[in-house]
């Protein structure tokens, strides 16, 4: 296995008093595309937020890109290097598509010259550039958020349901972007319910249930086995 990008050992993360993650063990190497699967409320989003340095590490140990998650300062340094596409699109309704992408790229210390190509690539360039975000459809908002992510050039991509709300072309585009990023040395962690789609993309499927990792398949399965208990890698079944 290549050098680990994500190393979690018994990671606990609390949302208020609720242990959204209750002792998760996970190791993801450089260049992997790990697919997170599990029922609603299993802790997938919290796992992504933990790896982004947003959710606190309340117990256990965790390192992402060499940053110790238990240290506040380290977590802040980590955030600059990863890209998180969460449930929200993080766009200002009153600003245009271009103004949003430009602000966030500048805020993320990204390359401003990449804005134009990124918007064009995601299909929110041209006419849509000058449209206020409040006038966009849900799918177009997601595309704009993806454009921001592309300009950010993260080393680690954390995508929470990236296909949600997108049309077929948009979904293909997401897969293509992830492929490309990984090919150029990035790593990706993707939470998705769309097994068929991501199966081709993932190098590994990670099952998250009850706030911990129940099983891992080193290769993507051809079948949609949600409660899978086979092919134990370094997870544990309870």
């Amino acid at each position: 296995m290549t050098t680990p990008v994500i190393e979690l050992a018994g990671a606990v993360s609390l949302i208020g008093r609720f242990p959204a993650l209750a002792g998760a063990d996970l190791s993801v190497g450089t260049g992997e595309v790990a697919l997170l699967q599990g029922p609603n409320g299993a802790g997938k989003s919290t796992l992504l937020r933990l790896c982004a340095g947003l959710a606190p590490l309340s117990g256990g140990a965790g390192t992402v890109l060499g940053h110790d998650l238990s240290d506040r300062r380290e977590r802040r340094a980590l955030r600059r290097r990863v890209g998180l596409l969460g449930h929200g699109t993080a766009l200002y309704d009153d600003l245009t598509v271009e103004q949003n992408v430009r602000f966030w790229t500048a805020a993320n210390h990204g390359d401003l010259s990449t804005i134009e190509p990124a918007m064009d690539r995601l299909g929110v360039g041209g006419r849509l550039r000058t449209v206020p975000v409040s006038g966009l459809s849900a799918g177009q908002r997601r595309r704009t958020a993806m454009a921001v992510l592309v300009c950010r050039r993260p080393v680690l991509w954390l995508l929470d349901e990236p296909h949600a709300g997108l049309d077929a072309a948009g979904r293909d585009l997401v897969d293509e972007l992830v492929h490309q990023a990984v090919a150029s040395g990035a790593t990706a962690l993707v939470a998705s319910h769309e097994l068929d789609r991501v199966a081709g993309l993932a190098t590994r499927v990670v099952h998250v249930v009850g706030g911990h990792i129940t099983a891992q398949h080193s290769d993507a399965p051809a079948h949609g086995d949600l409660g899978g208990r086979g092919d134990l890698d370094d997870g544990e079944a309870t």
Partner: protein
Amino acid sequence: MNDPAPSQDAFESALAARTAPLHTGSKSTRVLGVLALVLLVSLLAFALVITPPEVSQRDSFRLLYLHVPSAIVSLYVAFAITLVGSIIYLRKQSVFWDLLAGAAAEVGVLFLGITLVTGMLWGKPTWGVYWQWDPRLTSTAVSFVLYAGYLAVRKLDMDPVVRSRRAAVLGIVSFLNLIIVRYSVQWWRGLHQGQTFDVADTQMDGVMLFTALLGVITMHVVFAWLVIHRFRVAWLEHQADEAGLDVALRERRAEGANV
């Protein structure tokens, strides 16, 4: 959550494994409590019966034996503890200091309330009105709201760690503001009129001075007793939360088995 009974047992055993104190009382605080009670009774005896009435303010002066010490304890002791506790909490993340800061502020606000009420009661016979825009009373009223806001933040329903950190910032900034409010209000009223009342100006004989001193000591002991107990309750709540967490972790991990 299917079966509450084992969960309850697990909770109790998890709680028992936590660090002391696991009770609100202890031998030394019981002594302190008795001392506080004795002091309070003797303060009442001295303030209401043994001391003579003041020359010009007569019997209403007796309120000040309670009013002045309450103000001193809340403004100079309680909120200073909150300040120190908040600073240490932000540096060391220790729950102890966070809870102590909160306990001191709670009792401090209570004492400020006593200060306000006794001040207004004293004002009625002295000035003829309950409220005179006296600099001290006015700034005390603002301080009361200031720290009521601090307590409101402590009671927010949110992530406990985030809440403690925000409360700690507030505990520090509030003290800064306490000073600004106090001096600006005094300056403001000072321009219009002199101090309406100054303890140093009144004629106090030996017994009255002793009673004033007794009041200060009594209120400090009462304050200490209240803060210690308030802190212990908060500490127990925290321990119960943590013990509940151990159980919640186990239940969370078991969710997978039921799917």
